């Protein structure tokens, strides 16, 4: 024996000597086993389906992650990367993200909109930082609705001078003059505009493009022009006596200008879209008795399901399968002649076509009638080259580019009546395209979206089932009394975090550490609170990829050359 009864000293070990027992000279780190591998794990953030489903592509799991870690500001800034007005969309968005949410296939989707609202309100008065560098390029934005606000925000952020033209005396478009107070308080809209002003966006109010200044003039005066004038013309029904009707947009415009007297006690609201719902619910809160007339059934209504449900909860009367065919005025009342309808074959929109039932004419008597059967885009003031042969504005959906050089468009002006969030998304994408154009990039193409993590890559074992966190709301009997009370009260911090914790965080590494814990080798290293693969030791067993709860780690074949 070589150690003569003294403690064995591994450092003095010489080849050929025999120790008393096996000793630790090194550890397994000495033995690089990476060469045994035929597959290798790749750690890469991907897109969650909610991001893909959202027209703005907001990085939802990413900002949830920051929210959960307590970095509220960081969460807000991530949110603002893709959506400049989360306080607005956090209130009025139809949340397509929640339809995409993988958790919807497990128990209930995450209440993404309510968390967005909480984070948006947190950052609302902090955002609006002027750009560090001025580029000196000038861009005109026509219309200050959601599309225009979004385009202005992202153009200004990139250092361009932005001038917004708005025909009303205040900005916001549909946000201010369309959506009623109880859904979107105008104070929020004001604060959004204060943020834009802090950034240095300039506004020209009471200036109507097409009247006070033409698009051609703007194109000459500015380096680029963005059209976000919306779809603000009410369709006509084409029936006799229509001149006695109010249009839905007109009514909401009046109410949002402070005219709170309803046009009568018993009011008919014609239509089944969002404007019709807003009109009916606003009328109820102003003390009228609205009755909604719709020619199909509840199932076919184009309004958001949530809004219809709320209208029904409010106790508003709906008459389905009812179509007005004529109107006349008698003794200050409006008599609507209606026919009963039945559902026939499906039309091009996929909905069953309503067909009149013969001999079902009947008269209904109202104090006033509001028609809200759809809106269309006013294109009369636009250059001919930007229109197609049917008179529609032509613009690329991904970049907002029109056939006219330097002229871009987005929002309802391009899509026809759609949603705030789509307008916001198009506004941002157009801003990016305009920025590229101003920097002399020919043939700008937006970068393709990363891969999406579908439900089958989510390891549900790691997520105990849990219902959504309840959203505090005003009780029905209270909310129908007051037009000015916001009906949804929203999450506080505790609720927002609790709900965000339900998120699978699909495709976004939230440093859960599973791969680190389960790696049988030393192959996962923890660097800056994120896992990194050390390929010297990875044998390619694939456990990390299997156990990643959110589909970030994928196994790929090793390529030798």
């Amino acid at each position, binding site marked *: 024996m070589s150690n003569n009864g003294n403690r064995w000293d591994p450092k003095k070990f010489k080849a050929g000597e025999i120790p008393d027992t096996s000793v630790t000279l090194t550890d397994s780190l000495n033995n690089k086993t990476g060469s045994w591998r035929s597959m290798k794990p790749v750690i890469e953030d991907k897109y969650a389906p909610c991001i893909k489903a959202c027209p703005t592509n907001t990085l939802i799991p990413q900002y949830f992650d920051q929210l959960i870690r307590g970095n509220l500001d960081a969460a807000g800034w991530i949110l603002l990367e893709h959506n400049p007005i989360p306080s607005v969309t956090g209130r009025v968005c139809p949340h397509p993200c929640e339809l995409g949410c993988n958790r919807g296939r497990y128990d209930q989707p995450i209440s993404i909109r309510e968390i967005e609202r909480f984070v948006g309100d947190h950052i609302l008065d902090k955002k609006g930082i002027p750009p560090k560098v001025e580029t000196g390029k000038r861009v005109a934005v026509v219309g200050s609705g959601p599309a225009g606000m979004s385009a202005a925000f992202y153009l200004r952020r990139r250092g361009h001078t932005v001038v917004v033209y708005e025909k009303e005396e205040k900005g916001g478009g549909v946000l201010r003059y369309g959506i009623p107070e109880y859904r979107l308080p105008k104070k929020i809209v004001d604060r959004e505009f204060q943020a834009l002003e802090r950034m240095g966006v300039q506004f020209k109010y009471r200036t109507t493009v097409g009247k006070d200044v033409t698009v051609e003039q703007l194109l000459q005066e500015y380096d680029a022009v963005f059209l976000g004038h919306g779809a603000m013309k009410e369709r006509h029904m084409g029936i006799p006596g229509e001149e006695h009707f109010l249009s839905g947009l007109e009514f909401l415009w009046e109410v949002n200008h402070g005219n709170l007297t309803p046009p009568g006690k018993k009011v008919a609201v014609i239509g089944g879209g969002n404007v019709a719902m807003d009109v009916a619910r606003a009328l109820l809160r102003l003390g009228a008795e609205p009755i909604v007339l719709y020619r199909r059934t509840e199932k076919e209504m184009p309004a958001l399901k949530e809004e219809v449900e709320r209208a029904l909860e409010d106790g508003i009367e709906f008459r389905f399968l009812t179509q007005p065919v004529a109107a006349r005025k008698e003794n200050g009342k409006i008599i609507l002649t209606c026919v009963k309808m039945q559902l026939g074959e499906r039309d091009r929109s996929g909905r069953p076509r309503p067909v009149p039932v013969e001999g079902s004419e009947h008269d209904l008597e109202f104090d006033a009638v509001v028609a809200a059967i759809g809106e269309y885009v006013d294109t009369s003031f636009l250059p001919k080259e930007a229109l197609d042969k049917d008179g529609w504005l032509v613009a690329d959906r991904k970049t907002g580019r029109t056939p006219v050089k330097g002229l871009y468009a987005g929002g309802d002006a391009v899509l026809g009546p759609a949603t705030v969030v789509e307008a916001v998304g198009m506004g941002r994408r157009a801003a990016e395209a305009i920025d590229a154009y101003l920097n002399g990039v020919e043939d700008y193409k937006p970068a393709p979206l990363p891969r999406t993590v579908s439900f089958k890559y989510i390891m549900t074992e790691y997520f105990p089932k849990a219902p959504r966190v309840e959203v505090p709301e005003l009780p029905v009997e209270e909310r129908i009394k007051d037009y000015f009370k916001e009906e949804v009260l929203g999450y506080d911090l505790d609720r927002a975090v609790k709900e965000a914790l339900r998120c699978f965080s699909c495709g976004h590494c939230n440093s859960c550490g599973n791969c680190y814990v*389960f790696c049988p080798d030393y192959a996962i290293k923890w660097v800056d609170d994120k896992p990194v693969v050390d390929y010297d030791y990875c044998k390619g067993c694939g456990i990390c990829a299997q156990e990643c709860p959110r589909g970030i780690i994928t196994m790929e074949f090793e390529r030798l050359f």
Partner: protein
Amino acid sequence: MAMRLALKGLGNRVMATIPACCWTIIDGAWPNHALKIPLMHTAFETAAIAASGIRAALDVKGEEDVTVMAWAGDGGTFDIGLQALSGAAERNENIIYVTYDNEAYMNTGIQRSSATPYGAWTTTTPVKHPESRPKKNIMEIMAAHRIPYAATATIAFPDDFVRKFRKAKDIVGMRFFHILSPCPPGWKIPSDMSVKVARMAVETKVFPLYEIEDGERVTINYWPEGRPVRDYLMMQGRFKHLTDEQIEHIQQFVDHQWKRLVHLHELTHGSLPEEAQATLTSR
């Protein structure tokens, strides 16, 4: 993986004995070894008694803060080492004995052990004559010695695993761990499924997570929602040949064992947690 979690729970002041098992290989060939703790390779049947000896020597030297751990496979525990283990348990030696159970003699070519469950294929219980006896219940054998602490654990529940080892470290006397340790070649599963299979064993109640204190007080640590055993069995090639009747037989056996365990939990604690009732009815 199990070793790392165990040492995470126990810390650095540990000595280990390892009998013949696949860890002899993992650890590396003499005169080197890969663990950063003193380790003694022993004969197949002597892990427990060797650990007892080291303990006695340490006590004489006054190094009482050092934990001694015997780390043996199912063969070295359920079969060959049982006599030495029983002796150590009966004397209530102050050691931790861990069996990492992969349900056969995997290291020597997947021969059946008394830990091999009913219906499983091994090279000595081929598909024509699969294992006909249920798995030996080592936890009950150990509990029958009235040792201070015995617990089950698996790598699929690392928090539970580490917590139990930390707890065991502070207990004086014989402590026993039964760890279900999937063996990809022996169970005929792809290596990336190891953790999933272990988790499924718990979820299907085939391998419940529980602890027995003083040989009598039973606590179930995890209440699975309950999935059919078929889900667990069909993940593995070694059960592919099973007929529906055999699977039903296994299901009934598992359900019965679970009911027994729940009853013991109830006896210990006087009542059952809310989630318990669902585990008795749903499959």
